């Protein structure tokens, strides 16, 4: 797909929406207003935005622990997302899933996943269904560098290649598997090297550059759509917050200096500079986008807070179980 001015503005908006959602979620967690675990996507916005801008509503994605950004990028509704994080009945999963299982099947978002690598075979299955139906749709697997060490990932990547399925593997290499640096968990520098072993083409892209991600994803998606099988995109990126929660500085597993260095390449700042230089969107225009999104986030928080909790009588719904839960 061509990088038009509209695409640039669209990429910016997707990233700003993710950033504001995640900053708000982090703030709410710090204030103990969200139950459960929270894995924030701040810093990695260019990957979800760049990839999802290359997709249609019919295309599917599978996501990770760090899944809010993927759902926002695919068009997720702030109200239902925030309500899910707050475990409310109006949430995407009616309060049954929370942050780690947030999904919107109508948007083709097949769910965040609490098991590292667990979503990879599922997205390949969706890709199989697309080929089976001949509907031209493509499924995208988001996964981290850490997930590429999991057996399910290797099995599914090989399966997708062997069965020639319309799947795109997008590795968000943020250099850490939870709290352990990548160079301690694999003997290669570039995760994309693994693509060769499956017989699929792979590229490395600057994961802080939404335009570069968009271009690489567009190419991979076009290949899949044309029936030419799966491909692999490795996006070099970085998470600005901790693996879990919002503590940032003074961590032993990565240095404050390293974080500061990556912060100079904030994907939103980079795109805003480009937009301004190209005369597509000036500082005031960008600020207006931020203000509009911030207002929508505040409205979503209010919506979620005013929403009801799930009714305890519905504990046994939406699953095969035995009468009364057998209890």
């Amino acid at each position, binding site marked *: 797909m061509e990088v038009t001015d509209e695409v640039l503005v669209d990429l910016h908006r997707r990233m700003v929406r993710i950033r504001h959602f995640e900053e708000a979620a982090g703030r709410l967690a710090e204030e103990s207003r969200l139950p459960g675990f929270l894995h924030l996507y701040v810093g990695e916005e260019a990957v979800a935005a760049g990839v999802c801008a290359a997709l249609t509503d019919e295309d599917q994605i599978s996501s990770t622990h760090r899944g809010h950004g993927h759902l926002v990028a695919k068009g997720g509704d702030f109200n239902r997302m925030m309500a899910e994080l707050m475990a409310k009945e109006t949430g995407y999963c009616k309060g049954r899933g929370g942050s780690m299982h947030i999904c919107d099947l109508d948007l083709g978002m097949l769910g965040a996943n609490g098991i590292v690598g667990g979503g990879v075979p599922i997205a390949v299955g969706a890709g199989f*269904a697309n080929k089976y139906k001949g509907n031209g749709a493509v499924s995208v697997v988001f996964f981290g560098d850490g997930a590429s060490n999991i057996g*399910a990932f290797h*099995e599914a990547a090989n399966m997708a290649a062997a069965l020639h399925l319309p799947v795109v593997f997008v590795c968000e290499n943020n250099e850490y598997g939870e709290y352990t640096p990548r160079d301690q968990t694999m003997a290669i520098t570039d995760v994309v090297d693994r693509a060769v072993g499956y017989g699929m083409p792979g590229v490395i892209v600057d994961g802080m550059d939404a335009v570069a991600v968009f271009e690489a994803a567009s190419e991979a998606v076009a290949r899949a759509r044309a029936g030419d099988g799966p491909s692999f995109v490795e996006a070099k990126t970085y998470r600005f917050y901790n693996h879990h929660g919002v503590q940032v500085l003074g961590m032993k597993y990565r240095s404050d200096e390293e974080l500061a260095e990556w912060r100079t390449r904030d994907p939103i700042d980079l795109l805003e500079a480009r937009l301004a230089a190209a005369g597509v969107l000036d500082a005031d225009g960008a600020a207006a986008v931020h203000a509009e999104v911030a207002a929508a986030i505040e409205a979503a928080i209010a919506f979620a807070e005013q929403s009801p909790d799930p009714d305890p009588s519905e504990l046994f719904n939406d699953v*095969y*179980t035995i009468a009364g839960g057998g209890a």
Partner: protein
Amino acid sequence: MAATETETRTLAYGAAFNEALRQMMREDESIFVAGEDVGAAGGVFGAFVGLQDEFGPMRSVDTPISEQAIVGLGIGAAVAGLRPVVDLMFMDFILVAMDQIANQAAKLKYMFGGKATLPLTITTSGGAGLSAAAQHSQSLEAMLCHVPGLKVVMPGTPYDAKGLMVACLRDDNPTVFVKNKRLLGKKGPVPEELYEVPIGVANVVRPGDAVTVVSYGRMVDESLKAADRLAGEGVECEVIDLRTVQPLDIDTVVASARRTNRIVVVHEAVRFGGLGAEIAAQVQEEAFDYLDAPVGRVAAPFTPVPFSPVLEAEYVPNAGRIATGIRQTLGLAEPPG
């Protein structure tokens, strides 16, 4: 049933399973089969023979030996609107795929607030008796039954093999269909038309008043043989074939136990933590005052399945051991000789 037994055709258990799949695939284009060797080879036990010839390689898919990816393929395709059948060649191999089965398939619908439908059937072959040793012989149904969200069926007859497979294919929940390897060649009456045996309904295969013998899978035949022996001793056993272990038709079991006042559970899986423990617990909850003896259990010992035919014969419950277990529950002496 309109057809009498003499009019009903006879078919082997494995062929009855195959026929269910074939007839349903003709009816519903969204059904496909994927797994190791299920396509061109027709499955290592022949259960999928002829499907690729009739339906082509897209609906009868040979996959890599990748159990997690096989189950995941089914999950993703089910969420995307198909009705997949994925085969894990041996029941032992479900352990390789347990994340996809227990953490993904069983839970997605619930975690997604009911949005996902998962009409996924996982087929596999369990049970000992082929000298296949400890990694190709297990009966692991208790593990599956412990996971909310999964249904588990374990037919003991060709009739049920076909009818329960049809029920699994029509169910919108993930189901695990466990064929018993030793039953694949067993013949019995199987109607040609498509029919369904409802999931979760036990079958009283032999009425009796002295003791209730509850079993499933291959142990039903052994229990019936034991019941024949005991009939010679003047003891009439009521034998129940559970057919489905999750959901468990405890009502049928309890109703019988209240009449016979004694119950013995028989399974091929190891005794500790097996279905017998769950059934014993539920029966004492529902029928404590009716019981004249503790609930008996006849099951495999708590060891891996041995390779040696001599050891395996010692390991797997058989009619003789079941008869002994029943006599103990009845307080009867072993017959002389």
